[in-house]
Every structure is written in structure tokens, then in C-alpha cells.
């Protein structure tokens, strides 16, 4: 639904986005990167607020800049906290819904629905100036979904929300993704993002560093061995048995009495295929098993910090 081809964007002498080529399919895609990575620039290009200096940006097959045909099918929740402070939440969402083409009874109905979905129906008739950060965030999401867009662009939508709000919004975005809509989410909160999707676009210093499924990306990062933690009744015995596996690089038994051992491997696929036989043969009782660095945060850290 979104396609960037060698897209670059300069701000005078400073480059915001450097020769990025990627596609964003239907479903949820997380746009990640540290501050200054180019996330906001990419979002501004996709939402047609900026034009690429070189290259091409296509959204729903069209150039997005000032393109009403694209905006009709796009919902955008900006990161900026700008509002018409004297308006009520309902007036704000109603105005933007009207600008999206809704009218008459349909307009009022959809506005009420959107406010209900984001949990703002009780406070909708208060002025925006008196809203908390979380309420403002919810209203921004309401205006983005009010016209049932096929494409939802969300710039830091979880900022300022309490844990309950984050959970509710994450569930809402997941629902959009399940409906086959394209949801592009920029966020710093990696744990929340990981609950929503494993599909990522990782930007760093204006360049696209990685794209695709986070677990596949993790598997491709060779320079950092995969860590595996196993809890068992006999960590020393299991450690002895594991040392026989050529794919195991190192082993460490936890000293804090948790009966856990942690190992590193460069070939997780071979390790995971041999582990069950080894456990059964030794009669070990395994009570827990996890891969502490097979997650978004580790991938993010490994790729951006080396």
C-alpha cells in the first residue's frame, strides 16, 4: 500500500531520509529508529506533507502530496500536539470528519462511534484546552479513524497514554490490522510495538537499516550469538550434556539459585532441533525456556549500537 523507491529528503544541507526503498504491506508495520533517524520525515513524505527531494513515494499507487484521492482513504494521527484549544473534542472530530467527506446523520453517527471507540464519549464536549495528554492522544486517534480509512498512519500514538490506554489503543490498532488495513506505527515504546506486530521498518541516521519480520532479522544478525535461557531441576547436568553440541558457544549457570543456565549459540536452528532429544535422553526436567535477545528491543539495540 505504501512504496518508497530511492526516496531521499534534504532539509538544506541536512539529510532527513537517505535513499530509502521499501514497501509497507497490509497489516501492522512498526516504524522504528532512535531520535533523528528519519521516522518523522518518512511519515511526512507518506502523508504528503513533504515531497521527496529525489526518488519516489507512492501511497495506494499515487503520489500523496496534496492528493485528495489518497487522503480520502488515509487516516493520520500526527505526533504534534497542536489543537484548536477552544474547540471541544466533538467539534474537532466533527470538523475533520466533515472535511473527510462525511455529512448529515452519517457524520454525527461516525463521530459518536469514533469517540466511543477511543473511550472519549464522556469527555467529548469539553474543550480541548482542558484535556490531559492522554485525552488529546485519544482525540487524535478518533479523528484519524472517524472516516474508516484503509490506511492508518500513526506517529507515536501511544505517547502520553497510561498503561490501560496503551493497551486499549494497541488492541484497536491490532483490530485494524486484522481487518486487512494497512497500519504504519511509529513508536519508541518497543515492548508495546512488539505486542502488535513483528513486521518492522528500522531507520537509523536517515537510512533504512532493516525491513521485515523482526525474528527473521534477528536470525540474520550473526555477530551477536543468540542467547537461550533454560530453567531445569539439574542445570549442571544439562550444561554438561549441552557442551557436547558443536553449535553451543558458551554456557553459564546462574549462581542465584534459580536453577537456570544461559547459553549462546550462533546456529539457533541446529540448537533447537537437537535440544529435545538431548533433554529426553538425559531425563532432564525443563520448567522454563526463553530467548532473552530474540525480541524487538535486542534487534533494535544490535542494529543501532553495533
Amino acid at each position, binding site marked *: 500500500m505504501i512504496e518508497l523507491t530511492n526516496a531521499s529528503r534534504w*532539509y538544506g544541507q541536512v539529510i*532527513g531520509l537517505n535513499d530509502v526503498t521499501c514497501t509497507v504491506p497490509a497489516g501492522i508495520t512498526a516504524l522504528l529508529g532512535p531520535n*533523528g*533517524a*528519519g*521516522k*518523522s*520525515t518518512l511519515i*511526512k513524505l507518506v*502523508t*504528503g*506533507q*513533504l*515531497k521527496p527531494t529525489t526518488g519516489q513515494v507512492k501511497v495506494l499507487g499515487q503520489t500523496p502530496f*496534496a492528493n*485528495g*484521492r489518497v*487522503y*480520502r*482513504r*488515509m487516516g*493520520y494521527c*500526527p*505526533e*504534534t*500536539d*497542536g*489543537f*484548536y484549544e*477552544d*474547540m471541544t473534542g466533538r*467539534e474537532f472530530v*466533527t*470538523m*475533520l470528519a*466533515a*472535511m*473527510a*467527506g*462525511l*455529512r448529515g446523520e452519517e*457524520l454525527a453517527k461516525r463521530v459518536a462511534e469514533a469517540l466511543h471507540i477511543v473511550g472519549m464519549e464522556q469527555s467529548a464536549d469539553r474543550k480541548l484546552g482542558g484535556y490531559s495528554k492522554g485525552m488529546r492522544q485519544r482525540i487524535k486517534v478518533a*479523528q484519524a479513524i472517524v*472516516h*474508516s480509512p*484503509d490506511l492508518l498512519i500513526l506517529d507515536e500514538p501511544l505517547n502520553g497514554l497510561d498503561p490501560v490506554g496503551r493497551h486499549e489503543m494497541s488492541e484497536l490498532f491490532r483490530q485494524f490490522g486484522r481487518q486487512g488495513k494497512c497500519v504504519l506505527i511509529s513508536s519508541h515504546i518497543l515492548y508495546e510495538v512488539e505486542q502488535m506486530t513483528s513486521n518492522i521498518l528500522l531507520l537509523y541516521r536517515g537510512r533504512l537499516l532493516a525491513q521485515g519480520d523482526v525474528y527473521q532479522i534477528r536470525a540474520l544478525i550473526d555477530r551477536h550469538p543468540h542467547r537461550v535461557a533454560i530453567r531445569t531441576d539439574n542445570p549442571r547436568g544439562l550444561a554438561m550434556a549441552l557442551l557436547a553440541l558443536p553449535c553451543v558457544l558458551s554456557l553459564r549457570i546462574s549462581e542465584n539459585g534459580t536453577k537456570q543456565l544461559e547459553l549462546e549459540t550462533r546456529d539457533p536452528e541446529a540448537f533447537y532441533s537437537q535440544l529435545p532429544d538431548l533433554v529426553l535422553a538425559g531425563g532432564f526436567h525443563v520448567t522454563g525456556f526463553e530467548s532473552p535477545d530474540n525480541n524487538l528491543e535486542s534487534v533494535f539495540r544490535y542494529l543501532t549500537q553495533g
Partner: protein
Amino acid sequence: MALRHANGSKPQMSDLYLFRASLRDMLRPRRVAAAVLLATLPVALAIAWRSTTPGAAFNPGLVYNIMAGGIVFGFTLVILAVLFATGVVSQEVEQKTIVYLLTRPVSRARVLLARFAAAAVTVTAIVWVSCVLVALVAYGPADIAQSRLARDLLVLPIGVLAYGSVFLLAATIIPKPLIYGLLFAFGWESWVAMIPGSFQRMSIMAYLRVLAPHPQMATSERGPAEMLQALNPETIAVHTAWLVIAALIPVALGLALLAFSVREYAPKDDAE
């Protein structure tokens, strides 16, 4: 689900919402307070003049022409046009609400026109009220028909549109339009009429003064500026003034709409 959305030049519901929201934005308490202050300045001066002048010596025509022609036309109209017309774009950018307006399926031209219309209505209302109050103070309700009020009420909105469209154009193409607008309004516009030759033809105020003359200003006590103006023999015909103003408004407005449709207006502090 894609929504049906009628395109074309017919007014749409979104225009009304946008106009209303813009009007509300223009009428923020601080802005209204400043506008009321500007609108009441000539009224207060007229009241002071009337109360300090003995009855027989009081010349209502002179008072009205100086207050309406000098202050309402020459100052209030211009400064309000600068403030409100440049705010049409820059205020949206500064308060970062422009992202909402520019990512909706409404053409940028409609967005700009709706906001400009709100600004023009607001400024016109303020200068009308100011002018009417000055006429009431100078002539009193019974003799108000003797004043040039009717003509002024016709020309004021034209002046608002003329100045407004020029400042709107500036707001769409240059950064810090307010500063340049003020320099133009109170630098160029004030002094160009005193330059010998045809330079005054490059001043909007020169044409407005032809459309809404306040002749008694010229017979009042002359300062150096008025004397310099009197040395300038160049005159503009009324039909020329109508033609120039009638051409200026659509040209400036059209260029502003064009610029707004193709330029980027992302809030700066978000740009990486």
C-alpha cells in the same frame, strides 16, 4: 471503505465547518481585545475632539474625514489586514494544526479560501463598526447621512480584500510574513505617495483614497508629509482605481492559492 466526496466548485459542508472553525480561531479573546482597542482608537479621539471643541467651532466633516480617512483607512484597516491575513497560514503552522487541514481530501485552495474568508469577514466587521461609531460621534445619529459613511462602508471591504489578498500571498511564499507585511504597510504605503512621479500608483492606499476620498483632510493643517504629498501632481482617475483594485484582488488571491497548493507547510520543529 472509501467515502463519496463531491468535488467541484460548489460550496460543500466541509467549507462551512472550516469557515466556522476559522472564524472562531480569528475571534480568540486576545485578538478580539487588540482589535477592539484598534477599532475604538479613532472613536475615542473623535469623542475627545468633540468634548474639547466649542459647539460652533466643531466641524463634524473634518473630524470624520481625519478619523475615518486617516485612522480607520490609513491605520486600522491596514494593520488588521496584515495581522489577520498573514495569520491565515502562519497561525496554522505555528499552532501545528495545519497537518490536520492538509491531510484531508479537501483541496488546499478551499482550505485557504475558507480561512481567508473568515479573516476578511472579521476585519471588515471591525473596521465597519469603527467607521460607524466615528460617524455617530462626529455627526450624531440625526445628521449621519451627511457623512461619507455609506461610501466608506462600501470601500472598506474592498480595501480589506485588496490588502488581505496581498498579505495572504506574502504569507504563502515568504517566512515571517508579518514583519514584511508591517514594513510594506507602514513603510512603503506611507511614504510612496510622497515620492514625485508615478510611484504612488504602486500603493494600494492611493487607489483606496481615490475610491473613498476624504477631501477635508487636505484643507486641514498641513504637516511636512501632507506638504510633500501636495507637491506630487500625479492623480489617479476613479475608473483606473476601480480597475486596478478589481484586478489586484483576483491576481494576488490566485497566486496565493497557487503557492499554497504546491508548497510544503510542515511545522518546522518536527522536521528532522
